[in-house]
Structure formats: structure tokens, C-alpha cells
């Protein structure tokens, strides 16, 4: 991990993970699991992402997860970046925004961000289809 990522993670450990939690009746619920083999009980990482949409705006966003630190940092940044944005604005966010947020370029951060943005994108499309 790059120093900036480590520093941000350590800050979260001290101040708390701002977006952790669960939203009842979330407009969009997304989940993803790790690819660790369950043979013999290697517990896998997971992410539950809850998004509350009001008037096409991401009014609130919460998550539950167990992951590696860099993934958790990426999830926190995603929450910060999309909260208060319209769904269309959120769908336009790119991986670079994560690097800019931390002020560093980290390839792993970029990979994780790409994965999460794709997940979010699928959730937004599904929500729009269901509410159209």
C-alpha cells in the first residue's frame, strides 16, 4: 500500500469509518463476495452496499464489509464521492477521482475503484429500470 492509502486507513481507524451501517429499505442494495475458496472454511471478504435515493439524488449511503484495508479505503471514498450527487453524476465518476481524493496514484486503489464503480453502475441501471 502507498503511504497515502495507509495514512488514510489509519485515520479511519482512529476517527471511525464514517459510512459503516445498514439502511433499512434501501433504494439500491448491492452485494459482492470475495473469491477465496470456502474449502476448509477460509472465510471470504464481503461488501453490502446500501443506497437511499430521494428525488434521483443519493441521499444516503452505508456499507458493511470485511475486506483488506485498501478495499475499505476505496469503499469509504466511494461513499464520500457519491453522497449528495444525482444518479447520473454518480455514474460519471471515474477511477481518477479516487486518486485525486487521496492525492496519490496507486494502481491497486485504481483497480478496486474500477470494480466498485462498475458495481455501482450496475446498481444505478437496475434502479432506473425498476423505477422507470
Amino acid at each position, binding site marked *: 500500500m502507498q503511504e497515502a492509502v495507509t495514512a488514510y486507513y489509519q485515520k479511519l481507524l482512529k476517527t471511525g469509518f464514517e459510512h459503516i451501517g445498514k439502511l433499512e429499505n434501501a433504494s439500491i442494495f448491492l452485494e459482492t463476495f470475495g473469491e477465496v475458496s470456502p474449502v*476448509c*472454511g477460509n*472465510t471470504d471478504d464481503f461488501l453490502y452496499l446500501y443506497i437511499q435515493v430521494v428525488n434521483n439524488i443519493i441521499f444516503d449511503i452505508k456499507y458493511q464489509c470485511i*475486506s483488506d484495508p485498501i478495499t*475499505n479505503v476505496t469503499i469509504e471514498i466511494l461513499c464520500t464521492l457519491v453522497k449528495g450527487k444525482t444518479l447520473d453524476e454518480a455514474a460519471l465518476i471515474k477511477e481518477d477521482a479516487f486518486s485525486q481524493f487521496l492525492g496519490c496514484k496507486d494502481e491497486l486503489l485504481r483497480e478496486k475503484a474500477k470494480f466498485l464503480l462498475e458495481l455501482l453502475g450496475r446498481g444505478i441501471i437496475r434502479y432506473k429500470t425498476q423505477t422507470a
Partner: protein
Amino acid sequence: MDSRKSIEECRENFPSLKRQRKGKPPIYLDNACTTMVPRQVIEAIQEYYTEYPSCSGTRSRHWFAQEVSERIEGNSGKGIKGPRRIIAEFINAGSEKEIIFTMNTTHALNMVALGFPFQPGDVVLLTDKEHNSNLLPWLKLQKTGRIKVDFTVPNEQDDFDLDAFERKMKTDRVRLVSMAYTSNITGYTIPAKEITKIAHQYGALVLLDGAQTAPHQTIDVQNLDVDFLAFSLHKMCGPRGVGVLYGKKELLGQNPHEEDEADHVIAPVIQGGGTVANSTYHYYTLMLPPYRFEAGIQNYPAQIASGVAVQYLQQIGMDRIREHEGSLNHFLTEELINRYGDTGWFRIIGPQNASQRGGILTFEVKRPNALGIAAELSEKNNVMIRDGVFCVHPYFNEKFGQEWTRPISHSEHRMVYRVSCYFYNTMDECRIFLETLDEIFKERGYI
């Protein structure tokens, strides 16, 4: 130092330990899962495939088949001791006919579970830390209504509670006691001799899952008076895909017709080629043990190499292996406790005294995102340990709660890691593990 091989000399025998990645050697501390393989064992396997890759002389009468048979059953005239005899001597069995080759420990345990003549209402008694291999076969039988499964509970120090065990024996209709001789979580070895004595007093038989014992300490089945013992060669420098079921001669049957056997004799579960003396369109007569339990073409190279692996361990000395592992575990335990014992989020699982844990050290990390440390150790310095629940799901589900892998709060995040040493590990390797773990904890902001 005596004339036996030093640890450094032993390490020279392991090609996998000489590999490098990113300019660094492997630090293999996942031996409770599978051990590394010495050159001698690899050569024995290679020799089979190169020189006499045929079936054995129990099937064919030709030159190659005779060579296979000689290497499995031995030939005293030629000074060849077969693996069946080597293994029988290794555990001090009364006869090599009491040694049945299986695929692994799981296979061996299932052979007893499925072949034992249980009566409805019989109880099989387990500990609370059984590997799935010694749990699922019994739960499956319980589902069919043939048996009831019950568990003994350890005392507050997590040691085996002989009084609690005896109370179970008094009140339950226990027909079989089936227990992990050494826990793959804690490394704790149960008092098997006392357990067997009590079980026999109440008319029950005893099956020991010796997968984590046979590689690390001397086992004397006659002294223990245990009825069955299962173990795998892949955890003791041997080939993969071969295990052993030891059974007392009188429990393996002597009658060619299994239906005429006494009610304590296990029946062969898988039958076919190699297990029968004769068959008609209507009936068959069985071979004597151990052959009646070894159906189909056998894993001959692995069986031959298993003898080589056991001899390799004997050459080092089982007492010496145990002592070496113990000293590594003492060092690791002391260091980890000194460094993290007061944090509140680091805890060694099982007895805190390293001398009760053989070469196994399992610890819990209860910090946000405690996952992934094993992968990071490997990535940073080729340190290989294990994470997860080690095939003992019920123990952790009970201890941490069913939902422990999906916590809502980060304060409930936890993960369990197991370090397991063998005779070829060194203090330097342990130091690198400790330093790398420290680095990861620092990076993660845990310390």
C-alpha cells in the same frame, strides 16, 4: 549433536525449500495442512513410474508385478522392508495385517463410520474440536437414525476433561469414541491412553484421528490399547493421496463371509477387485484383512513412498522432531505474547502454554478488516501460514456466533490464523514471520 542428521542437513533434502521468489526463499509454516517432500520420497515415486509401473503381484505374476509387491509387502530374503511393515513398526501395531492403506485420513475415518455394525440408539462421542472429516460421517449416520452424536466438553483451560468424559460414558449408550488425537486448531493432544481405558470399561471402542499426531510424536497403539487409528502421509513428508487405517486384528474380521462376522467387526465399504477370494453370480467370499479393505488398483507409488517417508522421519527421530517443534513454538508464543498480549485484540487459541500445543500456534486477530494477513505474509516475504477455520466450522460458529463472518460493525471483525512448524523450520524463519507480521500490523494501524 548425535550422528543423526542436523536440521540444516535435513533442509538440503527438500527441493521446495530451495526455491526462491523475489530473491527470497519460502518460509513454510503451514505444515498442519501439508508438509514438504524430501528428495528420497520423490525418488521412490519416480522409481515406480520409471522402473516397474504395473499392478502388484496380488493380481499379476510377472516380473514388474513381483517388483511392486516386493516393495509394498517386502522381501526379507532381499532385505526389503515394505511400507506396511514399516508403518506397523512405526505405530507399534501387532501385525502388518492391521495396516490398511486408504486415500487419506478422511477416507479411513469414513471406512469405520460406514463399516461399523452400529445398532439403532448407539452413541458416537466426539470432542468439540473435530475436523469435518471426523464430524460429517457421524452426522450423516445420525441423519439416517443409526446413531446419535454427542460431544464432550473441555474444562476451563480448554484441556480434555476426563471427569466430564466419564460422566458421558456413564449416561450415554456410547458404542464408539471417535476423537482427534491432536487438535488441528490448538495442537493439544488428548490423553488417549486414559480415554481408551475409560471407554473400554464402559464397553465402547476408540477411534483416534491421528492426522496431527502421527507426524509429530511417537504413537504406540498397543500401549494406548486404541482400537482404530487413522492418519495421512501427506502431513508427514509423504506422498499425497495415501493414508492409513490401523485396526486391531479382531476388529477387521477373519471370516470370508462378512455376514458371519462378530458384531464388533467392521465390514468393507467399497468392494471389488482385490478384495475377494472368489465370487459366483450369487455370492462372494472376502480376502483376509487388510486386502478386503483395499478395493481396486491401489496407489502403488504412494504406498511405496510412504514407507520411505516414515523411515525418513525415524532417521531424524520422533522425539527430536517433537522437541524441535516445541522450541520453535515456545519462541513464537513468547514473542507474540510479549508484543501483542496486552492489546486486547490478539489472542492465542487453546492452551496458552506452548508445551501443550506441539508445533501449532493459532491466534485470533480482532481488528477492523482482520482478513488477508496470510496473503500479505506470503506476498511480502514468502511466509506461508493458514487462515480460516481449518475445517472445524462448528467450533468457531459456536465460539464467535453464527454471523461472525458477516458482522455489522467493524469492532466485530476478526480472523483466525494458524502457524504450524515442522522439523525443517528454523528460528530464523520464525523471526522473519514475526517481523513481517509486525510490519503488517503497523501498516494496518493495529499497533
